[in-house]
């Protein structure tokens, strides 16, 4: 679980072409101010620790950041930030160290591979990329290597660019980066899709190349493949939210706190451009529906990977409608097949081919019908403990605390 503190909402210094927060910007629902005390009170209610998030959180004045992080360190023992890295300065670096701020940086590659993280003009965009790359190098030099989030698209992951991206990751690994999260592109508009979306084949080729690359990198891991392997083996207690039956009304993995103190969700499903208040009751109707709905109608019926994938992130759903499965189904199916074959070759039994799968599916249906959800590992424990629904908590670590796909921070 991540508390995402968004003092300035989705306000940002750049204009990433694919950003899932663009609908909120288009609707002009960007807050103009924040209330420090209201935010702290809301973080207290959520139970912290928190990651300062945006938009771009380094737009928050440095004295306010310092105040927040000083309080966060005292109250929760650590802090986090997810940034594009462009604005990082000496004072920020001092604060990162002083207040134990774990830094996550979003960047899609070196030089022109990062152009999709646009800043209004090509010149400014390239200047920003240089600054972000310099910030990554500096943080590594100073012993605070950041985690990275990299989104794959036509700008950085077509066949002609993959070699450049691979080399960049090798350099990053040598610098001390140990954790990178690969995202598939979330398409928020037809024009963006036309310009940047990879075909399923290109996506498969790109993701497969990184899966193969992990073997040569001793220290750098791409968590998407770790997640998928864990899911196939049923040991998924620390897998990312996108695999864990996320409810778009409550987004268990993200407890957002806006600048006014309002509670909010992960923004990936805010296709209407509205940051809805978190619903008081969690529900899993999407997953019951996907289980029963034939694949030709946007569901997942009879898919052997369903219990691992669960239709994936509702923010990437077909037609932008969270009631459908992910539009990237073919990519994830292909990757699961790839990893499943590897496990079988290694003499392991993936859950997808195990007779146990049906029982676990049945248990998940019972849980979801009762308004509960667990990881596969948690469900196995629950089954072995007699399937007592009263014993199922909303999301404590005993049942699998869920990391968020937009932050590598504080996930244990």
């Amino acid at each position, binding site marked *: 679980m991540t508390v995402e503190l968004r003092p300035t909402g989705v306000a940002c210094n750049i*204009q990433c*072409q694919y950003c899932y927060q663009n*609908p909120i*910007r*288009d*609707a*002009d*629902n960007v807050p103009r101010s924040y209330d420090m005390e209201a935010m702290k009170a809301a973080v207290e209610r959520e139970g912290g620790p928190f990651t300062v998030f945006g938009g771009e959180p380094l737009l928050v004045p440095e004295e306010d950041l310092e105040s927040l992080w000083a309080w966060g360190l005292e109250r929760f023992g650590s802090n986090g930030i997810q940034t594009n890295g462009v604005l990082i300065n000496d004072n920020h670096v001092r604060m990162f160290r002083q207040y134990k701020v774990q830094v996550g940086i979003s960047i899609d590659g070196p030089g*022109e591979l990062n*152009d*999709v993280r*646009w800043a*209004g*003009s090509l010149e400014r*965009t390239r200047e920003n990329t240089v600054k972000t790359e310099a910030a990554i190098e500096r943080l590594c030099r100073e012993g605070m290597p950041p985690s990275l989030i990299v989104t794959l698209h*036509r*700008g950085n992951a*077509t066949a002609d660019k993959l070699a450049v991206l691979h080399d960049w990751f090798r350099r990053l690994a040598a610098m001390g980066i140990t954790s990178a999260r690969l995202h598939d592109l979330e398409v928020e*508009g*037809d*024009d*963006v899709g*036309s*310009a*940047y*979306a990879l*075909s399923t*084949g290109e996506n498969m080729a790109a993701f497969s190349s990184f899966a193969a690359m992990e073997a040569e990198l001793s220290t750098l891991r791409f968590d998407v493949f770790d997640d998928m392997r864990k899911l196939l083996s049923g040991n998924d207690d620390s897998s990312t939210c996108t695999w864990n039956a996320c409810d778009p*009304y409550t987004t268990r993995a993200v407890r957002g706190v806006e600048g006014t*103190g*309002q509670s909010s969700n992960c923004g990936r499903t805010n*296709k*209407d*451009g*509205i940051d*809805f*208040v*978190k*619903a008081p009751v969690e*529900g899993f*109707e*999407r997953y*019951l*529906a*996907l289980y*029963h*709905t*034939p694949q*030709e*109608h*946007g*569901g997942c019926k009879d898919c052997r990977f369903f219990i691992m994938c669960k239709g994936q992130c509702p923010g990437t759903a*077909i*037609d932008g*409608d969270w*009631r*459908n499965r992910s539009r990237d*189904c073919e990519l994830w199916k292909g990757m699961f097949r790839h990893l499943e074959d590897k496990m079988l070759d290694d003499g392991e039994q993936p859950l997808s081919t195990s007779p146990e799968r049906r029982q676990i599916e049945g248990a998940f249906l019972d849980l979801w*019908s009762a*308004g509960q959800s667990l990881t596969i590992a948690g469900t196995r424990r629950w089954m072995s403990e007699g399937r007592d629904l009263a014993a199922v908590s909303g999301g404590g670590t005993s049942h699998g605390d869920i990391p968020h796909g937009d932050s590598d921070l504080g996930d244990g």
Partner: protein
Amino acid sequence: MADTLASSGEQAAPTTQPQSETADPGGRPAPMERLDFTLPDFTRLAWVSDGAERVWRPRLERIATAWAETEWRAVLAGVRSCAVTMASPEEFLTMGATWAEEGLNALPVEMMGISGQPYSATGVPAEAGQPFVFRFVVGRPPDVAAFKTAWDDGDQEAIGDLLGYPPCCREFFRRVWVDEAMVDTTWPMAVATGGAGPETTTTEATGPPEANILWRWMGVRAVPHLPCRLDCAATVELGTRLVEVGRRAGFAQEMDWLTEILSWSVEWSALHGIAQVKTPVLKVSTRTDATTRRYVVRRQGSAHPSEGIRGLGFPYEVPVRLRLTESRGFRRGLENAVRLHPRPSWYATDNGFSSVGAMHDAHRPVVEAGVRALGQGGGNVIDLGCGNGALLERLGAAAPGVVPFGVDVDPQRIEHARQLHAAHADNFVSGDLFDGDQLWVEGRRFALALLMPGRLLESDERRAVTLRKRLHQYCDRVLVYAYGDWLTRTGDLASLAREAGLTVVGPGGQQAALVVIDGSTPGGTDG
């Protein structure tokens, strides 16, 4: 048992799912494609902002309280013979005394568990040791006795009559809820109001606030029943009288809020058994009939709350201009992408366009119509006269699961298509689209065929007939499209299609529409 007001009405819903067919006023069927499962009952709500919640949540609570009292006071006012309400044994001690003072009788007809939801279509069975409520019928003693008899007999008509429901709505309820076993009557109501053809999945409706039942999941309604239409005159009359009863009972403020809310725009949509209701201040996720496709009902309102929010679609306040993605700076980013990750020089020119942008603009309505036609099914899609396959490429990017096939007379363009569709290179054939025997293979079906009708006009009639027969034999749907000279020549796509022996069906667009293919010649002689 009939649907009643949100705070008190829960009913058992059947679980079998026959095909629903409702008729519009013109009598055309508007089937709702339903799947054979029903989700457990649920109702969940999310507010657009803390500010909206602060203002409207207490008002909703007061409206629900006022409505519960208005329901039985309508019996005293002579608006109806009976009312149904819920009460715990403790609440009954107070309420029963009040009813008795007013000369009303109250009889429990059912014990129920507590759903914890503001609305539940399915009654929760009472469980030993768990909190429960009684469902009471309230009325004059003879009417209560009559209600009990009707209840025991399962006589929906008599129950509805005693509760004051209009005859047209009782008939509608019997047909849709009882006979067709639907768990949500919203789509049939909307179709009856606005009309809908067989392929319609979005309908717009309006009407007086008293007949707006799309807030029932939030406990806001002016009538206790499910109207047959969103503008049913008998329902409006009943609602007007009930609101007046509420005002006389001391709930003038609550009735003002109620009427205001029911005057706002609201959208209901259904997909896979989940309904989502969007309003200017909150959205609700709740159970509905499981459908293969997305069905949408938009009720245009006459007012908008000051606590409502800007959003990118109905029923929100839509900005005139998209603040970020229509800005010049952002568009420069897209231009940079095209420049930096260029398409081959032939990408647009192969297909007769001067630029990629112009081609994308022309293809956009075709792609949108193709996506709508395919739903989420994907499948084989053939483009007859595919050029270099750019249209299929865009359709494949927009509609998951598309397997492209194409034929074109120009070998160079087909070579390019094979480059664009490397994974499906063998599906692209160079040749005359009226021959193309390699594509029309026994056992292969196409979910969709794309055809510019002018191609049929360029050919002789014998070959055109052969192609129409193949389309009929091998294709589930045929989407015709046109732009440029072909459109200006005939004036519109429907005329062009008609000239080519094809009949446009459904609400076709100016540049793309589905057509009926019956395998016959325009003159009706099967070739």
